[in-house]
């Protein structure tokens, strides 16, 4: 414990941030210390420990002390630990929490996980010995130092400064992100609670409140049975969206055979929007309301799961008859061949053939050469 020094925790120019982990406790050898709960930061040069409760309590341990690293696996009651065997304390070191220690090793206990990652990264860092590189150079340069700073080493330093700033920004961003996620987690828990109550009819809330609740779930992106009937009449957003989509897609559908896959629709809509793009979920949910709203465009889902938008006026019977005729004319067709003839996609052509087959108009021939469809002579030719 006496190898540690007090620090302000600020990284030097050559130092690089490697990793960090919350929830770490320091042991002096086998004994607990006052340093019970903090954030462990590993840099290329040292290990820094920041107390969670007292922002000003920061300890630092140069990696040059580390002679050997061991691991203690976690058990049912104990967290995983990293054991660092240290060389004797340097009398010239800055002051720290202890002037002497009975032990020549310390242990870090990872109460919130991260021990394996730490072990890996500190082993690498100790091997690399980044702290030994620079001092040799600066000694040699000596009096010329001031001039060189504006030259190459000056540029190098500013790049390193940028890296350090970026790393600092990232670590700050991660910290902020964690805090944000903690808050979101709370809200998810409350939402699930409310949702359970709604489903078990243990809590009556008004319809307005239900709408409000559903919109919260949508905003947070929580998948919940309560939102899943969102394409009922209670959801204005999807209905508005459905009308928009129908307006935009009616003409393109007319010019491309009356049917289009949803992925095609997704691309067209979003390419047209440029900004504030639609999510796939939004598109599907909106399309599901189209039938209800009696719009000129509607969603159709094939057995295979393929989803298309088609004109309400699009008649399935007419398509099947058309497909049958086309196949008859060529004798037999595969999906690829049909696609070329009618100028549609292979996926859609395949669906056409499958639908016609289902209605008994076509027969299939499966071989390694592919799936080929023939007119169903068993129906048409009199025996």
């Amino acid at each position: 414990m006496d190898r540690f020094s007090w620090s302000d925790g600020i990284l030097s120019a050559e130092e690089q941030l490697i990793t960090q982990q919350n929830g770490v406790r320091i042991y002096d050898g086998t004994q607990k210390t006052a340093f019970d709960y903090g954030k462990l930061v590993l840099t290329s040069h040292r290990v820094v420990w920041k107390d969670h409760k007292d922002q000003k309590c920061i300890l630092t341990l140069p990696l040059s002390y580390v002679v050997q690293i061991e691991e203690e696996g976690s058990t049912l009651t104990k967290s995983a630990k990293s054991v660092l065997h240290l060389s004797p304390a340097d009398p010239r070191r800055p002051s720290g929490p202890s002037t002497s220690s009975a032990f020549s090793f310390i242990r870090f206990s990872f109460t919130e996980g991260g021990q394996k990652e730490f072990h890996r990264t500190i082993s690498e860092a100790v091997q690399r010995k980044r702290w030994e590189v620079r001092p040799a150079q600066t000694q040699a340069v000596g009096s010329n130092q001031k001039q060189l700073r504006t030259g190459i080493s000056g540029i190098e330093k500013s790049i390193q400064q940028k890296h350090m700033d970026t790393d600092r920004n990232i670590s700050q961003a991660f910290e902020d992100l964690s805090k944000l996620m903690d808050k979101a987690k709370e809200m998810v828990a409350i939402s699930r609670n409310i949702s359970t109550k709604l489903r078990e009819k243990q809590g009556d809330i008004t319809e307005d409140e239900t709408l409000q609740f559903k919109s919260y779930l949508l905003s947070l992106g929580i998948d919940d049975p309560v939102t899943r009937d969102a394409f009922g009449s209670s959801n204005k957003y999807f209905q508005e969206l459905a009308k928009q989509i129908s307006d935009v897609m009616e003409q393109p559908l007319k010019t491309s055979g009356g049917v289009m896959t949803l992925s095609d629709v997704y691309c067209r809509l979003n390419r047209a929007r440029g900004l504030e793009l639609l999510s796939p979920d939004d598109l599907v949910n909106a399309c599901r309301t189209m039938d209800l709203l009696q719009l000129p465009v509607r969603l159709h889902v094939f057995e295979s799961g393929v989803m298309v938008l088609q004109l309400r006026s699009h008649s399935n019977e007419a398509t099947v008859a058309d497909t049958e005729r086309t196949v008859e004319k060529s004798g037999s067709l595969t999906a690829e061949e049909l696609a070329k003839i009618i100028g549609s996609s292979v996926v859609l052509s395949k669906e056409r053939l499958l639908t016609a087959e289902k209605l008994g108009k076509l027969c299939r021939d499966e071989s390694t050469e592919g799936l080929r469809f023939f007119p169903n002579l068993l129906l048409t030719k009199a025996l």
Partner: protein
Amino acid sequence: MHRRSAGIAAIKNKNLAQARYKDKGSEIASEQLTQLSKQMEAFRTNLEEFASKHREEIRKNPQFRSQFQQMCAAIGVDPLASSKGFWSKMLGVGDFYYELGVQIIEVCMSTSRRNGGLMSLEDLRKKLLISRGRNKQEISNDDILMAIRKLKTLGNGFTAIPIGKTFLIQSVPGELTMDHTTILQQAEEQAFVSERILREKLGWEDERIWRALDYLVSEGLAWIDDQAPDRQYWFPGLFI
């Protein structure tokens, strides 16, 4: 000394207690909703603050994005579910992934005739980088996988099939069984397999091998090459 109450009085009391509990239940639900409303407002502010500080980070840093996604998944939240959601609106994650989705669809549609709708993740990434141009921000494999996960909803069969250390991206509907994906994993090394290789490496009987290979050929995922002494089955999705 404490005897359980018995008799009709006890039943009446119990009912009363239950009724009171039910009321308390509904009161709590409504209270909770109010609490949730307050928290949502506060959260919106926090998110705005976070966005103003770190929006660039999300835009530029794939690792940060990946970390963000993981954290959302861990708490049960899908930031990409709706373009109207907090996350996609304020952090701009939505537009990034939805646009990537469009580009993925376009790349896959333009190559599916050649590879039957199957291509490696690396290949997809290379083609995306070309179509996105130099000025666009960096995308990682994680980004692509996340976008594909969302595209699945469209029903066009977008899936990421894990093979070895990487993934194969399927962009057409069609069920690939475990046997099919096992053969694809075998094929990953050299982009082809033969019946002999499968027999040796997997120990399957002939029937099983033929059935799986036949399907892959008929779906256009594998091409037959009879120029070698042993018939070879090549997978364009793995070598183009």
